[in-house]
């Protein structure tokens, strides 16, 4: 990359090695590399947060309020990318989904828009939840709805607890699979990940009235 400011070789870091001007963001960088982290599920969150804040200090628009417009644009783009990366990495579920997509597992749905960077030409394997699972979850939903209608808050809480337990168990499996790098395990993890979505929806519904106080 040639530096926009001094027209010399800028190097690959955020700031030009020759003149120190902030360089434009690399749009293709993925969330982990933006934060300087290895692309794996098991990460040191505290260290990741420290890295996020340290980088924020350096590239944040507050540091460039009166700088050259090109530096300000670079600062805005880099901070947007950095914030997005941290949003993806800090949340276990988002992090898992991101890693699965990165490994070529196609997981449709809510988080697509949070994808950072390229990866368009990767091999994708579409994953769908097994029918037996869907059937079960539909039945559970109906059971939950009936319990809510009947005002049986004990049963609702009990069901939520069970699903929470299942979700936690799935998450352990997903975490293990993600860092194993084995294709077969990843595919299984992707299916578990799909299941997490359903668990999440189930829990949202269960907590809608049990959450006490969060409602209006």
């Amino acid at each position: 990359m040639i530096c926009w400011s001094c027209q010399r070789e800028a190097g690959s870091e955020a700031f030009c090695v020759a003149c120190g001007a902030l360089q434009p963001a690399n749009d293709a960088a993925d969330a982990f590399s933006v934060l300087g982290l290895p692309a794996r599920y098991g990460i040191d969150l505290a260290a990741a947060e420290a890295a996020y804040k340290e980088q924020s200090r350096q590239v944040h628009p507050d540091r460039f309020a009166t700088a050259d417009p090109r530096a300000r644009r670079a600062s805005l783009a880099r901070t947007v990318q950095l914030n997005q990366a941290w949003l993806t990495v800090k949340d276990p579920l988002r992090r898992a989904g991101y890693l699965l997509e990165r490994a070529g597992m196609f997981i449709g749905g809510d988080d697509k828009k949070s994808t950072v960077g390229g990866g368009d030409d990767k091999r994708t394997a579409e994953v769908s939840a097994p029918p037996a699972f869907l059937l079960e979850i539909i039945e559970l939903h109906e059971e939950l709805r009936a319990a809510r209608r009947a005002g049986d808050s004990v049963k609702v809480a009990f069901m939520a607890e069970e699903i929470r337990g299942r979700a936690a168990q799935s998450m352990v499996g997903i975490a293990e699979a993600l860092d194993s790098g084995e294709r077969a395990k990843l595919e299984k993890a992707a299916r578990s990940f799909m299941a997490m979505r359903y668990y999440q929806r189930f829990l949202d519904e269960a907590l809608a009235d049990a959450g006490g106080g969060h409602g209006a």
Partner: protein
Amino acid sequence: MAPDVLFQIAEPGESRVKHACRTNAVGIDLGTTNSLVAIVDAGKPICLTADDGAGDAGVAGDAIVPSVVHYAEGGDVVVGADARDRLAPDHPRDTIASVKRFMGRGMRDAEATRRLTPYRFAPAATAAEEGVVRFAVAGGRAVTPMEVSAEILKVLKRRAEEALGGPLAGAVITVPAYFDDGQRQATRDAGRLAGIEVLRLLNEPTAAALAYGLDKQAEGTFAVFDLGGGTFDISILKLEDGVFEVKATGGDSALGGDDFDRVIAESMIDRHVDIGRTDDTEPHFVRRMLDAARALKEALTADAEASIEVALADAEAPTRFALTRAEMEALVAPVLARCAGPVRRAIADAGIEPGALSGVILVGGATRMPLVRRFVAEAFGREPLADIDPDQVVAMGAAVQADMLAGGASRDDVLLLDVVPLSLGLETMGGVAEKLIYKNTTVPCGARQTFTTFADKQTGFDLHVVQGERELVADCRSLARFTLTGIPPMPAGMARLEVEFTVDADGILRVSAHEQVTGRQTAIEVKPSYGLTDAEVERMILDSFANAEQDVETRLLVEQRVEADSIVAAARGAMSDAPELLSDADRDAITRAMADVELARGGGDRHAIRAAIEELDHASKEFATRRMNRALEQGFRGRSVDKVDAELGAGKAGGR
């Protein structure tokens, strides 16, 4: 091409600021009731006071400039204490107070239509003008809230320039954290009208935390409860190693001390005034009653009972109104209770227990009231911190930020991480709001989403940008509409429109869009549009919780219907486009399945629609494959089969 296009962001204001040894940058708290300006002097933020009152709008020795602007017959403008105390009683219509409540608001907003307003509004000449309130004042002038605010800012600018002995380099102006995009735009525009380089819009609670945190070397998680004259904010921040990180924010941009005055005045009128003889829309009367209510409220902060005499009409003997603190508290308690929901949600959104807080910081004049302090103590389960001047702390925080932005005393250790107060999204088919950026996302932030055409040969996209938490567009605040045109006709689902949202550090949204197949693009700075009243905005978040479940159901049904329409349209189009690829058996099966989809679509059961769509998918699979293969041969080489499949609407119509 993508990176250049995606970050095609409007120039963030042409800076005329050059690096200087001394930063003539100031912090401005543009408040509903009072405004202040502060600078950093010898490393400490201080609020500037009126020296001698000569040519200044404040009271000598006082930092406060009342946010009151008087427009005189001859064209003169008077700002501050003089306008409030001397001119407002005699010229209620020409003397604008609490203009902040009108910022970014339209003629149909509650603020412009409520009871007990002393103002007269200029009728909107065009539909576009409905989006901005205009006060009809002396001399036949009509002024917008931005212009009125600019008059206040000019006074503060003059005061600062006199103190600094030179021109202002720039200013950080504070806004309520809960201000939406339109209100922020209006504030920035007011700064521009006043000839001020607006370095940043800073959220008031964040400014307060910054001033408090640096002054006290505080660390931990703090709540800032900011109840001013017209707005309410609640922010939860984590202070650690110089990082001020907002975890969650909430509030109500039309709730404050003014609303207390209003309920007190309404009660005074209802109990003691013979409306048969007195017109409660008469501006002098309204102004007097509101001022009397405010005086009673302030007296009752210290005293258990108070009374005031008001001349209801010029010729009449004054009427005495007496009120006890208990009576007043009974009146304002229901208004104050509106803070409870936002407080609970902010705590929940921040993912903390109230017990984990290190302290609660009070900001805003209304937090002086004993009732408000009791409310806060109860809401957080702890006594709020009392060692901060709730009037000055915001301006001081803004001054610190201004000094940092202008490159003053090196504070490389300080970092402010603020958030978006309300989710931002786009309208999609069926009036559903697709959120691109969720509330409480750290700014600056961005999001991209790809949309596609709904109908065959569609040549334009109408983009409708909305802000709010509800699922349906009709329940969110409309921010802007714009159109991307000139897309060559393609089958439905073939065009790829990528929309990019970028929220800058001021919390202001910019939207750009480009059609990926043709490369056509458009970029706009979101200018507020219209459609919703203030009350509707206030209701948005509350409703989103009350109706979360119903919303989801409605949304799923709407989406299912939209999908049904689009799949039937696609199938129909495909059949007429490529009849030669169709066997008689296929045609019969597809036609039957289409009829079933349309039948199911008319009902309210989304599962039935889903089932019918799947049936149609199944029936048309062979045909779709043949058609897709041909399409691929005809020039979609290089695209993955999955994508074309999805675009043709014939592949997996997968669940969400």
